[in-house]
């Protein structure tokens, strides 16, 4: 596994270095003051350096690192989600419980690999108990809207995100001790697909995919991004239990889900009248702006691997 990780890290460093050099050349040639696209591009690349560094550190701490990192990502994402939606004073204890009980408990379930409870704790127990607590408080104003927002907040930012570290709990025959590489594969193809969609969209984009939801998404970006991300998946098959063709297919499904995640996230933001989820990462907006695609891809990827590759 050491060897595979070294290749992945060297590959990522090469891509990021190239991106930084290209951006520096573009900035040097462009008329001053720099256009907002170039400023944003530089900020995005710099943020990628930080994110890759963080992921690498978490990688070397193995299961501890990954579980803690994704619990923190859930915290940041949940905070953004709840901030954006309508809450009332009487929701205080439910909101506290989301941060103080649901996040730690869900990640404890990941840590102990208690699969049976891990998959139903939020969709069954929290789904039923959270509205019950809200109803007990007696405040019925915009009730359905409030409980729906709470459900969505924990499903998206805790339940879906926790499927990434949960990949470490799967027993894939012949792949023992290498599950961290599944996480690396998922993140690289899904985030890579985002970047490739952005690049193809900027270079070739003409036909808008959904003008009412997200004006920046185009058919050209989508197709170019998905095809190239599937190829990237096939290239990375050496770190996975998949054959190159299988890896391409799995990458295609994960990246398609990622695209839909971005679309849903855009629709929510549009509905709430904001452009970004938050202000955590310079140039990227909030945590949810970076993880919306991963959030949709992770559970599907998890269940594909679990169904077809574990005993």
């Amino acid at each position: 596994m050491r060897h595979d990780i070294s290749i992945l890290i060297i590959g990522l460093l090469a891509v990021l270095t190239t991106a930084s050099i290209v951006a520096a050349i573009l900035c040097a040639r462009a008329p001053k003051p720099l256009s907002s696209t170039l400023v944003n591009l530089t900020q995005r690349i710099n943020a990628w350096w930080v994110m890759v560094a963080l992921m690498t550190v978490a990688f070397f701490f193995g299961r501890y690192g990954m579980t803690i990192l994704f619990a923190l990502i859930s915290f940041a994402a949940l905070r953004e989600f709840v901030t954006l939606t309508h809450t009332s004073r009487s929701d205080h204890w439910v909101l506290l419980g989301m941060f103080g009980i649901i996040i730690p408990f869900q990640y404890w379930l990941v840590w102990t690999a208690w699969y049976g409870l891990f998959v139903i704790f939020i969709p069954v127990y929290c789904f039923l108990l959270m509205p019950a607590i809200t109803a007990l408080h007696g405040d019925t104003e915009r009730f359905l809207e409030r409980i729906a927002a709470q459900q969505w907040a924990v499903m998206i930012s805790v339940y879906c995100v926790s499927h990434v570290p949960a990949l470490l709990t799967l027993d894939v025959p012949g792949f023992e001790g290498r599950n961290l590489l599944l996480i690396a594969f998922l993140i690289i193809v899904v985030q890579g697909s985002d970047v490739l969609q952005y690049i193809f969209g900027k270079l070739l984009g003409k036909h808008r995919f959904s003008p009412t939801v997200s004006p920046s998404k185009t058919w050209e970006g989508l197709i170019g991004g998905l095809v190239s991300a599937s190829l990237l998946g096939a290239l990375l098959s050496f770190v996975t239990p998949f054959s190159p063709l299988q890896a391409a297919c799995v990458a295609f499904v994960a990246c398609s889900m990622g695209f839909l995640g971005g679309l849903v996230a855009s629709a929510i933001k549009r509905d709430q009248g904001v452009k970004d989820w938050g202000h955590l990462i310079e140039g990227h907006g909030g945590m949810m702006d970076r993880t919306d695609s991963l959030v949709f891809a992770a559970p599907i990827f998890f269940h594909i691997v679990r169904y077809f590759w574990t005993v």
Partner: protein
Amino acid sequence: MSKLSLKTFTMLQTATSVGLSVLAWVVTGVRPIWNGSLPSDRQRIYFANHTSHGDFILLSACLSEKERAITHAVAAGEYWGKSRLRRFIAEDMLSSVLINRQWTRPEENPIEIMLSVLDQGHSLILFPEGTRNMTDQPLLAFRSGLYNLSMARPQVELIPCWIENMSRVLPKGQFLPVPLLCRVVFGAPVTVAPGEERRAFLDRAHTTLLALNPRPERDD
């Protein structure tokens, strides 16, 4: 002030202020939006909306370490002066300035107390509503202190600061904060126009502060 030695005293205050700023960031990811003014070590009165005990922590977390050391929140003596522990927290740890809204003796005159702090070259954080706003209105009417201070020390800048979301982070009667993102919007300085009446100025300052709210429909 207190009987603690000066060195321990300064260390305690620095540790508290750094600790609280870190806590504010962890819970609320607080970020300043400089919208009409810029960070500066000029002498200032920051005036803000007031919905929670955490307000001044959030505001001072947006200032630099150097500014924080000379910026004092003005707090209600009736509440914070009630017991020795509260007074210790307010005065010694948070270096607040305590004033009594119902005062009788001349040395208790709130304006005189605040002026004496300004005359040391220090800055103030003031909540001109005079109390925490627990109503459904976004901002209560201002009391006169802001006007009186500005008339007495016209060289001190009055900076309006809108603190977002704190009423949701720490609602009335709760002491555990819900982590929600907060921003503090710092507006352009307000000055008393020549010949401007007290009420007219206070209403104008009120409107200016309210206009800084980046998402007015959210504060429900």
